């Protein structure tokens, strides 16, 4: 049996700050600005917002944002774990909240100065060795110098290359597609700056086998959404981006970024779990998806995502990509905003906004006939995904 809220809620407002390398503003200011913009985009007033769902790792407090926006009362507030894995999970939670009546208009946002203040890419080398679950977990990796998100993902990538014969160039083609799409996006950091596969191969090593251009940017910025029921959405100005289905997934022997102890480490079973829920709740399949935003903190894990959703068979994503399928004009253009490599790294939330724009028809790289858009959240962590659909 599917989830009762499937298809009954919608994203009715999106709003973002500028995406930059140094916002020059506090994260609270970014949070308030993007939320303000999303509420306006939805044609609502702040006092109509009565729910809020954030990432657990969001620094800003619901109450501070509410106070600054002039939101008087909140009847639902909750947080979603696991960093970028939370992205679609926040909308999943918001959809459940409005469908259940816990709130009517739910605000979701993510805002940070990830480039100018707290960079994830610098690594975790300075943590204190406390006997807490998190430090015990780092104890299996940090003493050996496996300290950065890129290195955690590279371990999967090397094994994937070994098992399926994928190459660095196959990963590079994801970067080339992202940057090609970003080149058309004035909001993207890499607007009008496409790259070639040669550029990718020549870019410096971050952690072998990953080059610099396999890695997403680090960015400052904020991205917000307003979610409400489809019934209410029909009274609002924007065409609703219906949350046809949303799902979270955590799979057997799940670890944070380092699920290295499973029988297989070249698939993403937690994403497969999301996929099965989405197909079940929508009755759709891979052929019904016109475009997808696949989480791209690092290029290699885009490949098994294509496999988990059945766009190609297991181990064949490199061929699928090599055939040009993921670029505009291909079978499944991905990351039409430029992705997190090309547009900005806003923890996957800017990708969800691009999904909404594809449904509204105002993407900078519109995919003709985009009726169902798949969006995924962070890979290598407990994750989430959703399908946005048009109302016609």
């Amino acid at each position, binding site marked *: 049996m599917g989830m009762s809220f499937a298809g009954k809620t919608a994203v009715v407002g999106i709003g973002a700050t500028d995406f930059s390398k140094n916002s020059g503003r506090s994260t609270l200011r970014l949070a308030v600005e993007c939320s303000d913009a999303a509420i306006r985009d939805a044609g609502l007033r702040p006092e109509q917002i009565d729910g809020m769902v954030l990432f657990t790792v969001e620094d800003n407090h619901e109450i501070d944002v509410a106070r600054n926006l002039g939101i008087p009362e909140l009847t639902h507030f909750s947080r979603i774990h696991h960093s970028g894995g939370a992205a679609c999970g926040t909308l999943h939670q918001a959809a459940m909240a409005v469908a259940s009546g816990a709130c009517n208009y739910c605000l979701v946002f993510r805002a940070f100065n990830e480039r100018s203040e707290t960079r994830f890419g610098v690594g975790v080398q300075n943590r204190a060795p406390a006997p807490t679950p998190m430090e015990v977990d*780092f104890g299996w990796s940090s003493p050996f110098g496996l300290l950065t998100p890129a290195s955690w993902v590279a371990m999967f990538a090397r094994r994937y290359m070994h098992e399926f014969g994928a190459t660095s160039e196959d990963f590079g083609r994801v970067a080339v597609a992202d940057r090609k799409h970003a080149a058309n996006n004035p909001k993207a950091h890499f607007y009008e700056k496409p790259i070639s596969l040669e550029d990718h191969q020549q870019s410096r090593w971050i952690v072998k086998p990953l080059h610099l251009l396999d890695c997403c940017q680090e960015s400052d910025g904020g991205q917000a959404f307003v979610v409400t029921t489809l019934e209410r959405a029909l009274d609002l100005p924007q065409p609703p981006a219906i949350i046809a289905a949303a799902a979270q997934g955590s799979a057997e022997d799940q670890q944070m970024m380092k699920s290295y102890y499973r029988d297989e480490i070249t698939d993403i079973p937690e994403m497969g779990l999301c996929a099965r829920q989405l197909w079940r709740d929508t009755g759709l399949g891979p052929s019904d998806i016109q475009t997808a935003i696949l989480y791209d903190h690092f290029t290699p894990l885009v490949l098994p995502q294509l496999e988990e959703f059945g766009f190609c068979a297991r181990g064949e994503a490199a061929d699928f990509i090599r055939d040009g399928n993921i670029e505009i004009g291909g079978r499944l253009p991905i990351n039409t905003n430029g992705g997190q490599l090309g547009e900005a790294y806003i923890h996957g939330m800017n990708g969800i906004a691009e999904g909404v724009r594809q449904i509204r028809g105002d993407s900078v790289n519109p995919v003709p006939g985009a009726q169902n858009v798949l969006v995924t959240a962070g890979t290598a962590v407990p994750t989430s995904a959703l399908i946005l659909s048009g109302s016609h």
Partner: protein
Amino acid sequence: MSESEEPGFVAGLRESIGRSGSIWVARDPVNPAMIRHWCDAMGDHNPVYTDADAAARSIHAGIVAPPAMLMAWSMRGLEPAGEGPDDAEDPGTGVYRALDAAGFTSVVATNSEHDYIRYLRPGDELHSSQVVEDVSEEKKTGLGVGHFVTTRTEYRNQHGESVGRMLFRILKFKPGTGRMAQAGGQEAAERPMRPQPGISLDTAFFWEGLEAGELRIQQCGACSVLHHPPMVRCPQCGNYDLGWVEASGRGTVYSHVEPVHPAFAAFDPPYVVGLVELEEGTRLLTNIVDIDPEAVRVGMPVELVIRRENSQGSLPLFRPVCPPRSEVTRAGDAVAVGDELPPCPIPITTTLIISTAIASRDYQDVHHDRDLAMERGSPDIFMNILTTSGLCARYVTDWAGPEAVIKRLSLQLGVPNYPNDTMTLSGSVRSSEAGRVEVAIRGYNRLGNHVTANVELELPPASD
């Protein structure tokens, strides 16, 4: 012109170029005792060198000397002064003495190229003659300020047959004038500590095990299933009574990465983080050590070595396992360009350095006398070039098989092999045509690349 030298100094040295010295007759004929000593010291167990029966059945039809011993036969050993021929007439010796007199008293070999025209047999008497081929201008090197001297030596047997040739290049330098001698040990001492693991009541057994010199894997006391990382309850059977077993320490590389950027002060690049699958079935993260990072491969056999690095406690690290010696000689048609030789770690001990120096009759003090080596500006004794040649030859024939015949061995030395290190040889096939095979190899130690070599082999062209 360098300020340290008189005008015309190099020009004077270069007058020796092209002049042949006297013919030197080896002090002993090729003999089984020296061959056995060499093979023991090098760890070379190829039976064609020491096993008369096996050698008689081989393509050699009898015992042969390891080809890399070529130069060893004509070394002068600990010959008392004045008992040899008049060295001053020898152009090579003359150049060396002139450099000694000018303060370039330290010596290190940098290159050698051996051509083996035919393998030597017991009873052969080696006659050699040397020509100075080049003397360089003064150069600043990592070891010190000095001159490269290149010589070429022809080897004949007692019947006048040409049996081999050697090009040899050494650096004569002034002790204490280089960077490398000073740098050495300091850097590691200043390296900050690695991140320490968080240790809980549930995981303490793992870290305590390392201090006790063993790698422990958690095991359910009820259903015997193994778990890593450790748990508090066996998800298979629900039991809370979890113990551990000691791992054999054998495993294979399941995946690996080489972090490059950002650099972490606690980690000395280049370094490899490996995901090792133990033969018991669990995996763990570790460093793959004692190997050129570029030579690490998924599937490579590795073995545990527990070490305290710049860490509070001991860490479980893994290094390559020396592959077994091939008992059967590979056929040329079974060797393809790009084939890789499995890496082979060789522990560099004081014993290895000294025993191989003596086995090669090389009594240069820097290869056996630590005090004198340090006086000459070296942090310790170091391996001589003949041993590096011998180990490269052994590595290639251990892979190719006992009847592989080495035709040519050329090598260039990089950083020295000091005691208490490990040099890991790795290699790949560069060309293979009708049984003529060229293998490129590298020997990598903690300081970097010790040797880059090319070995040309003759193999039976086709398998039967």
